[in-house]
Structures are given as structure tokens and as C-alpha cells.
């Protein structure tokens, strides 16, 4: 089946094809992502006693922590889309537990992440309404620099945009989550530092968070939406070929499928993409890179 074969189909027929393919990939329990959530958090927590008691050298702890914190977002992302279980389903408690716990190392509250991420899906690439639009940049190095600049004290971009989004949604109550998370995080950093563990706090938590946020914003926000100038359902996200491959890019090479069908589990996006590609081509999606 090629795009040319499908070009004669009507929009309704294309939509039916697309949905039939998507349906094949929905409803599969993502066992690995649940294991990933708890194992990743356990490893990060375990690093602290291992490093503080001298079992693991700090440099090794730093590398592992940076990987841990970077990997902490995606299980929560699956939970944000109710992929583990929808409201009312048997495993709903697990969905919410994964959502809340997995991003603790990243100091990102689940409710903040979920509400703002759903807005990102609703308004992708809209400069005024997409909470992730501030990562838009002309190229890879500019995107990395933009991510760092967005984290500066008086920046209005990056995660700072999330506060404005919550105000727009009239969900200031959720901002309290962020205030509590930040207060506990900085309180812990300061307490550790003044107790003689400043290097450990810096290399197991503070610096890994900055590395993780840069990496996550590059591959999850910038790369799949670059150049960020189109807002249509079939044009706001692209497939792309990452130097580090699909795993190295945190599974984002096939992100176009995620934006069309957000409840398909991350691990099934590649298969769904290849099945759906003729439909995507017929729709004019930006899928030329893969």
C-alpha cells in the first residue's frame, strides 16, 4: 500500500484506515513502562546511600543519576495519557501511582505535568497556548541554549510557562503542587549542602536535573515539532531520524503517531507508524525522514 494508492480515498476513508490501525495498538498493558517507573526510581534512591557510604564513587553516581532523572519523565507521560489504565478501570491506581512517583527525581508534579501536557496536545505549536512552544528554536544548538535560558530566574519560557497555563485554566490549586515540590527540593538541596554533602547533592540531583531537562526538552519538545510553525493535526508533528536512534531519542522518532493517537503506548509507536505511514503520507504529514 503506498501513498499513491491512498490518494484517491476520501478524508473519511483515510480516517477509518488510520483509526483501524490505531485500534490494533490500543489497550495493550505497558508492563515494561510500569517496571521502568519503579526500577528507575529505586535505582536513583539507592544511589544516595551507596554514594554517601562510599560504596559507589561519586562520578559513577553522577552518570547513573543523570540517566535516571532523564528516564524519569516517560513513565509519567504514559500515565498522563491514561495508557496504563483509564478512570474507573481496575489498574487506575497504578496509572496514578506511576504518574506521581516516576517524576519525583525530576521535581515535576504529576498534576502540573498532566494538565500542561494535555494543553500542549490541544494547541501544539500555538505560540500563545502551547505550554511547550518556548523551546522553539532554529536549530539543535539553539534549542539546547534556549532550554538553558528558559530555566533562568526571570525567564518566562520553559517550565515557567506552565504556571501561566494553569492560571489560564483556572487551576491555581495545582500550582500549590509545584510550590510544595520546589520548597522540598530546595530545602533538601540546602540541608544536604550545609551538612557537608554539597557535591553529592550537586552531582546526584541538581546537575542531573539540568541535564535531563535539556535532553527531554530537546527530544520531546523541540525535535518532533521543529520548526514549530504549523498547527494542523497532520502538520504540527513530524517523524525524524535521531543521531542517537529511537531509544536514544527517548522513543521520539515516531512522535507523529503519538500526537494523532496519544493513547497508543510508547513501545508500540514504531509499529503503528510503519503501518500507518501510507495514510500519513496521503494526509501530507511530515514523514519523509523515516
Amino acid at each position: 500500500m503506498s501513498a499513491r494508492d491512498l490518494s484517491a480515498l476520501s478524508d473519511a476513508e483515510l480516517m477509518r484506515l488510520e483509526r483501524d490501525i490505531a485500534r490494533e495498538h490500543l489497550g495493550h498493558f505497558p508492563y515494561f513502562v510500569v517496571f521502568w517507573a519503579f526500577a528507575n526510581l529505586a535505582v536513583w534512591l539507592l544511589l544516595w546511600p551507596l554514594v554517601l557510604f562510599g560504596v559507589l564513587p561519586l562520578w559513577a553516581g553522577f552518570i547513573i543519576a543523570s540517566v535516571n532523572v532523564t528516564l524519569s519523565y516517560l513513565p509519567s507521560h504514559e500515565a498522563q495519557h491514561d495508557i496504563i489504565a483509564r478512570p474507573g478501570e481496575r489498574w487506575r491506581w497504578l496509572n496514578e501511582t506511576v504518574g506521581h512517583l516516576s517524576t519525583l527525581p525530576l521535581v515535576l508534579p504529576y498534576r502540573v505535568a498532566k494538565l500542561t501536557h494535555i494543553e500542549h496536545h490541544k494547541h501544539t505549536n500555538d505560540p500563545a497556548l502551547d505550554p511547550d512552544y518556548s523551546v522553539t528554536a532554529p536549530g539543535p544548538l539553539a534549542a539546547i541554549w534556549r532550554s538553558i535560558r528558559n530555566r533562568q530566574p526571570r525567564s518566562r519560557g520553559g517550565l515557567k510557562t506552565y504556571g501561566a497555563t494553569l492560571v489560564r485554566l483556572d487551576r491555581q490549586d495545582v500550582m500549590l503542587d509545584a510550590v510544595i515540590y520546589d520548597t522540598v527540593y530546595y530545602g533538601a538541596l540546602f540541608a544536604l549542602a550545609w551538612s557537608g554533602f554539597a557535591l553529592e547533592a550537586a552531582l546526584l540531583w541538581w546537575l542531573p536535573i539540568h541535564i535531563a531537562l535539556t535532553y527531554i526538552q530537546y527530544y520531546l519538545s523541540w525535535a518532533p515539532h521543529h520548526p514549530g510553525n504549523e498547527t494542523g493535526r497532520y502538520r504540527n508533528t513530524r517523524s525524524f531520524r535521531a543521531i542517537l536512534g529511537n531509544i536514544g531519542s527517548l522513543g521520539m522518532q515516531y512522535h507523529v503517531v503519538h500526537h494523532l493517537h496519544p493513547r497508543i503506548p510508547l513501545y508500540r509507536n514504531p509499529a503503528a507508524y510503519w503501518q500507518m505511514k501510507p495514510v500519513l503520507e496521503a494526509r501530507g504529514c511530515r514523514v519523509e525522514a523515516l
Partner: protein
Amino acid sequence: MDSPVARAIKALFHVGPILFGLGFVAPLTAQTLAALAIDAPFGLPHLTFGILVGLGLGLIAQIRGRWI
């Protein structure tokens, strides 16, 4: 956010860079110098030098609105 606790937290976050400089950069600088066995300039104790660096960088970041 109208409660006294909320106002206090808001005020603390408003001077975040200075707090971060004193709360984190200062001991981090002192402990980094100690770990590398480097003496602080002018014969200052590591922690005193760390506080000067942390407070200085924090003040600059507070005024400029950015660390880098």
C-alpha cells in the same frame, strides 16, 4: 495565595537567586575547593570564600535575572 505562609514562600522565591547562592553555591564552592585541596585566596577559610562567591553570584543573578 493570601495566607501568611503563602506570602512568606512567595517572598522567598522572589529572592531565589540570593538564597540559592547562599544555600547551595556557597557550601558547594567551599566543599569543591576542599575536595580538590585548593586553598582559598587571601588565606580565607573555604567556607568564608564560598559565602562570598555564593552571595556575589546570587546577587548578580538576582539583578540580571539570569545566572548565565
